[in-house]
């Protein structure tokens, strides 16, 4: 029976094609399909906020420059990972991340909770010339970010697309995206208050690169780095309640 079946499949190569699809699709379906109901099982994070327009712009720069090629944003459930980088990452923490930036290589350290670990000033100095603050570093210098003004006019469109994909941006946020991006990097301007109103008290309003008169790509990237790991405190809450469940090979 199977033999006859296969011979027919082979004569018309199309049947053979179907056999390949039948063999190759099952694994993907089995592993991926259940992930769409995963919200039923994962932690809840009612306090989770979305990226501000400036942080989103910074995230896009992080992607554009390929930072993910050398920095992970995924703290594993291993003792040394947790002790080095902080509470292990939860699925919920990247639920608004299109795409996720978990990474696959640590030529540099993990950045999942780098937000707030260093001052804005340190971040700017480090990005401008990493070896000025970490002499042994092999990271490229990103001095050009300071020289490049941030493109802000179209940020509303970015937010609108993300809302279509399920990120809860409001009409108000979309309409004011460019103003909010400007306001977050210029604390003295009239736009600064709007950002806090729309995105919450915890929003980091700062002249990230130290220049208050304009908004550069450096502002955006530092704003993004400073919010990493701080969109929700679900991880520290959960892991403070339960003793860390840590893999057996932490050392």
């Amino acid at each position, binding site marked *: 029976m199977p033999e006859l079946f296969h011979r027919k499949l082979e004569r018309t190569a199309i049947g*053979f094609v179907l056999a390949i699809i039948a063999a*190759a699709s099952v694994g*993907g379906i089995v*592993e991926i399909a259940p992930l769409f109901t995963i919200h039923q099982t994962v932690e809840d994070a009612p306090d989770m906020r979305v990226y501000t327009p400036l942080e989103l712009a910074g995230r896009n720069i992080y992607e554009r420059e390929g930072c993910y090629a050398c920095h992970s944003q995924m703290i594993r459930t291993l003792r*040394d*990972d947790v002790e080095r980088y902080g509470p292990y990452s939860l699925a919920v923490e990247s639920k608004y991340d299109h795409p996720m930036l978990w990474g696959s290589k640590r*030529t540099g350290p993990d950045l999942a909770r780098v937000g707030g670990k260093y001052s804005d000033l340190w971040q700017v100095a480090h990005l401008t010339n990493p070896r000025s603050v970490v002499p042994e570093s092999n990271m490229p210098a990103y001095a050009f970010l300071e020289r490049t003004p941030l493109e802000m006019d179209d940020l509303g469109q*970015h937010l609108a*697309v993300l809302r279509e994909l399920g990120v809860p941006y409001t009409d108000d946020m979309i309409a004011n995206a460019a103003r909010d991006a400007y306001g977050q990097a210029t604390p003295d301007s009239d736009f600064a208050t709007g950002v806090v109103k729309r995105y919450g008290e915890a929003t980091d309003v700062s002249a990230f690169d130290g220049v208050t008169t304009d908004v550069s790509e450096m502002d955006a990237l530092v704003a993004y780095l400073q919010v990493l790991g701080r969109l929700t405190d679900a991880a520290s809450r959960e892991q403070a309640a339960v003793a860390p469940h840590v*893999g057996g090979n932490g050392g």
Partner: protein
Amino acid sequence: MVAQLTSSERQYCAITLILMVIVGVAMAALGKSDPLGVHGVIVIVYSGVLLYLVLSAFYGPEPQEDRQASYYDDPIKVGIALSMVWAVFGMFMGVWVASQLAWPNLAFDAAWSTFGRLRPTHTTGVIFGFGGNALIATSFHVVQRTSRARLAGQISPWFVLFGFNLFCLLAVSGYLIGVTQSKEYAEAEWYADLWLVIVWVAYFILYIRTLARRKEPHIYVANWYYLAFILVVAVLHIVNNLAIPVSWGHAKSYTIWAGVQDAMVQWWYGHNAVAFFLTSGFLGMLYYYLPVRAGRPIFSYRLSILSFWGITFFYIWVGSHHLHYTALPHWVQNLGMTFSVMLLVPSWASAGNALLTLNGAWHKVRDDATLRFMFVAAVFYGLATFEGSFLAIRPVNSLSHYTDWTIGHVHAGALGWVALITFGSIYTLVPALWKRPAMYSATLVEVHFWLALAGTLIYVFAMWNSGIIQGLMWRTYTEDGTLTYSFVDTLVAMYPYYIARAFGGLLFLLGAIVACYNIWMTARGAPAVAVVGDGPAQSDAAPAPAE
């Protein structure tokens, strides 16, 4: 190229290219100062140059001979040439980025030349540019010879080849100007991805129609592997790249997948790009060129069938082994690990089948560097698949993940297996295509072999050392239970290995340059009036030396 086409076919070519120019103009108009506009200009120039080539030969004499009486080899020749150009480009980029890790100032304070932007030009250049063109070219060759039928199309082979290279060009140029989806091995943006879908559908139809023309009742197993490569890559590519562009005028898009789903989809894609792009297609090469070069049939045909279905079935499950100890559900990680280990069986069956085919012909392996390329490739295939299964085991992965061990493993596969089987196949194919008795210089093939082997070994050993050392340093504790080394301490320990790795890569690049010269001289030395299909029997594909 154009001389083999009838005048109506030339018209179709011209119309297609004019449409592509129009698409390019639309992209440039919509994109304006966005990188999309730059890519519009690239599309216009690329299509325009091809249009010029078609039009300049438009009124030349039409082919007189019966084209169905011969195989269609012109696209294969061009494919091999493009493959070698991308090889040199991609490997050069590899050496450059490797050097940047040792000497970071080699980025020269420019935006386009930082590690993060150059790294995907290396991966795309070698995987898609070098590997992809080699796969397309050899698949065109194998499907014709094993089906005893000419390709089922005069224009579509060209469309597939030049369309695919346009995709590679858009991808690589995009990274330099900051266009990327940031999905590893799928960095190209939405419009390039859409274009690749069109090209890939054309490739699939061409391949299926050629198989349907076959005079042999049975489809030779190499074609199964090529077909799985074409099909599954299409599915992976489409699902992983589903995205919504910010607008029609933006190069930037947002993937529809988020967080943990995106991680699973991306590594389902990522590992199966390894499986179906870098393994399946190249096993197709192995199952054709190795027996042909050795002059011996494959050791066990049945085993090749079993391993085909094993590889096709098992591979698709294993992507989650890239996400051990992460926020991905535990049971998915375990499935990935289990199937990764089971995958060793069909993988070693393939490697063993190749080696046993050579059993009894070891004198040929000794004397013929081309066959030795394929022999070493099979050995590295066996080693890399063993290492892959090993690294997929959770506790092992906790040490190796995020370190250079992964990079070493990938390059054991990419240099030792993929590139060596490709060079072996190209050295078998080139004299046959250009109707020459042998390569221009057997000595240069030998030189290339030793450069490639030395380069691979230096590279892989350097990365094994650095990866294991760094993984161990990360988890070393002092007696009072605190971490012994800061991250920077572990980075400092890497520098000697980064220098060694760049040197290994350089040797490999030099080998590829030697190969380009050898291929060029072989092609140039072809008889001036080579009538297609008129050469001697393809017995020259079997090695001459020492017999």
